[in-house]
């Protein structure tokens, strides 16, 4: 023991060479401060991002939700036989000679009657009262009458669109003072509307026609819907999916797994990366030149739109597919080749299934990008074209002129009437829902194909 005490080691806890673990030295403090600072920057950045997202979503929802409801008027109209079918023999040819203008008097009479029935006192005459209704009403009544000739002579209750000013008043967008210089409507009309709402003849309800309907002329925002352009977008997406996915995946597999690495393939690689960064409007003018002017395909057709968007999407798909093929461990390829699989078998039996989640994600991202693209559509005539009818059948869906959702939204945003501004926001909600659905599908597919190794 005495020998031990002679050694320089003290018996108590050792005072080590000048520094204690409890006291932080300068360097450590500085390092910790830098770390804390960096974390704070990160949190700040995330918060700013989240704040913008919240502002965006709130403003989209607040501005867009009203577009999904519409003001309707319950209007009993007497289908006067003397005016609609003077001969009385219900001959369709004779009845169709009565133009939409011929229906106006009936509607005006019905409005006057509606005032009397609900005890509303007004000195307005029929034509003035008719300003409360959409100018689509005569056509609606006429279509109904021609389809149901046996109803002539009866009183039929129609559910007709109110004019966009009345609708705006119901949604709080239009105030009485706004109407002072408005030729379309007077403040007196709004008094009547108030009374009709109390009587239950006017109500604001969910408007399926906004989701399913076609675009309308500039003066009838209340009638416009996004449905037909949704069909246009749908057919374009089918073209993109059917062309871009197989072409993109085949090209990436070839480049990644089979092609020799030489200057030529390097050049292709660089060009694919460059193509991904080319402004989409360039693809639009390429499509105009190649598919429409040279190829003779019809203008404004979803087929052409789809082809252009395919060109635009291909680089995205190829890049993401190649990345996911690269991410498959080479040991899997070795294993397959080692048991005597050919290169093709190794790729298709082992590498491709493992790369599938990545390929699908890339494809859906590419599709989502294509779905929201407007600029290339400008040049092939899909913006500004107002399709009023649904395509008749599948071939027509690809070849008949149509628009696309983002083009439709752009078109609405351009129009002067504030009612269209509201519809543009509503259209964006529909577009976002579409995108969200696609992303959810991507996530589900990813989960399903994902395998551990």
């Amino acid at each position: 023991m005495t020998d031990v005490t002679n050694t320089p080691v003290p018996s108590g806890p050792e005072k080590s060479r000048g520094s204690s673990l409890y006291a932080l030295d300068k360097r450590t403090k500085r390092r910790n401060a830098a770390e804390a600072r960096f974390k704070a920057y990160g949190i700040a950045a995330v918060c700013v991002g989240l704040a913008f997202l919240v502002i965006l979503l709130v403003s989209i929802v607040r501005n867009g939700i009203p577009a999904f409801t519409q003001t309707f008027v319950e209007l009993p109209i007497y289908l006067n036989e003397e005016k609609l079918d003077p001969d009385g023999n219900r001959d369709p040819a004779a009845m169709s000679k009565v133009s939409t203008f011929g229906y106006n008097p009936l509607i005006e009479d019905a409005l006057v009657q509606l005032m009397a029935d609900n005890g509303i006192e007004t000195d307005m005459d029929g034509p003035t009262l008719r300003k409360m209704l959409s100018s689509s009403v005569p056509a609606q009544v006429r279509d109904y009458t021609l389809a149901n000739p046996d109803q002539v002579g009866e009183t039929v209750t129609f559910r007709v669109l109110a004019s966009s000013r009345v609708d705006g008043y119901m949604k709080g967008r239009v105030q009485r003072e706004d109407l002072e210089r408005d030729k379309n409507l007077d403040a007196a009309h709004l008094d009547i509307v108030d009374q009709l709402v109390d009587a239950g003849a006017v109500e604001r309800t969910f408007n399926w026609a906004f989701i399913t309907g076609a675009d309308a002329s500039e003066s009838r925002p209340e009638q416009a819907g996004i449905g037909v352009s949704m069909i246009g977008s749908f057919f374009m997406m089918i073209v993109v999916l059917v062309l871009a996915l197989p072409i993109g995946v085949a090209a990436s597999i070839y480049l990644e797994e089979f092609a020799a690495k030489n200057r030529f393939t390097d050049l292709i690689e660089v060009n694919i990366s460059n193509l991904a960064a080319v402004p989409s409007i360039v693809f639009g003018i390429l499509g105009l030149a190649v598919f429409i002017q040279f190829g003779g395909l019809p203008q404004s057709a979803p087929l052409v739109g789809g082809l252009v968007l395919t060109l635009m999407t291909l680089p995205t798909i190829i890049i993401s597919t190649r990345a996911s093929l690269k991410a498959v461990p080479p040991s899997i390829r070795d294993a397959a080749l080692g048991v005597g699989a050919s290169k093709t078998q190794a790729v298709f039996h082992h590498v491709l299934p493992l790369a599938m989640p990545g390929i699908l994600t890339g494809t859906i991202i590419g599709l989502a990008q294509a779905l929201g693209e407007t600029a290339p559509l400008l040049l092939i005539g899909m913006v500004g074209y107002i399709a009023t009818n649904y395509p008749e059948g599948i071939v027509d869906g690809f070849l008949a002129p149509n628009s696309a959702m983002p083009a439709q939204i752009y078109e609405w945003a351009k129009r002067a009437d504030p009612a269209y501004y509201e519809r543009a926001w509503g259209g964006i909600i529909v577009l976002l829902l579409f995108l969200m659905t696609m992303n959810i599908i991507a996530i589900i597919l990813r989960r399903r194909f994902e395998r551990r190794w």
Partner: protein
Amino acid sequence: MNQMPMTSENVTTMPTKNTKITARDVQVYYGDTHAIKDVDVDIEDRTVTAFIGPSGCGKSTFLRCLNRMNDTIDICRVEGAIKIDNEDIYDKKVDPVQLRAKVGMVFQKPNPFPKSIYDNIAYGPRIHGLAKSKADLDEIVEKSLRRGAIWDEVKDRLHAPGTGLSGGQQQRLCIARAVATEPEVLLMDEPCSALDPIATDQVEDLIDELRSQYSVVIVTHSMQQAARVSQKTAFFHLGNLVEYGETDQIFTNPKDPRTESYISGRIG
């Protein structure tokens, strides 16, 4: 090359009866790098041959020449003659796919397919059409797993993923997968380097059993392992085959001073 026990002339004229693989004057280039220089070697049937040598000496490269796995590397170029059963495997008529069914390979890191144990084994026989029916295939799977000395551990969970096994089990599964295609030669590239001592022991026992049916060529970093499992040993250094002979002789009485320095730990 004068340390070689046999000169190239007397081998080509009079091949030993049970020689499986003969390599003559083999050169391998990676781009401009000369990775393997003038290698001549005769590998016997039903024997375990070990390739030893320091890292980067070319032993794995040479092993991968034997089933043409180097074909997958663009910049790799092989010259000289490698014959299996007197057939030149680099002949234009030879399809590497057929060759690899005859020369199985086990890799350094266990690399089971991310599929079930059953499918791991059945994949090779399936693509080569070795099984006529489901029952045939079941039999092949069982036989291969038994040969891989792993049947008892996995027989109750053949449809569980192969990637869920432990490292040693995975490596034996890979060996079973390699023997499922009925190869004649089995190449093993450091099969135990990722395994713990117990798993290594199991795999070594397995290699010793496999010797009765196959010509096994094993690349290893561990000289003890080479001494334990092999009958013949080849020592590679800087791309040259320095010495090749009976394992006992290489480890007890090496002829070349470089071999002696390596096995006594002075270089490597």
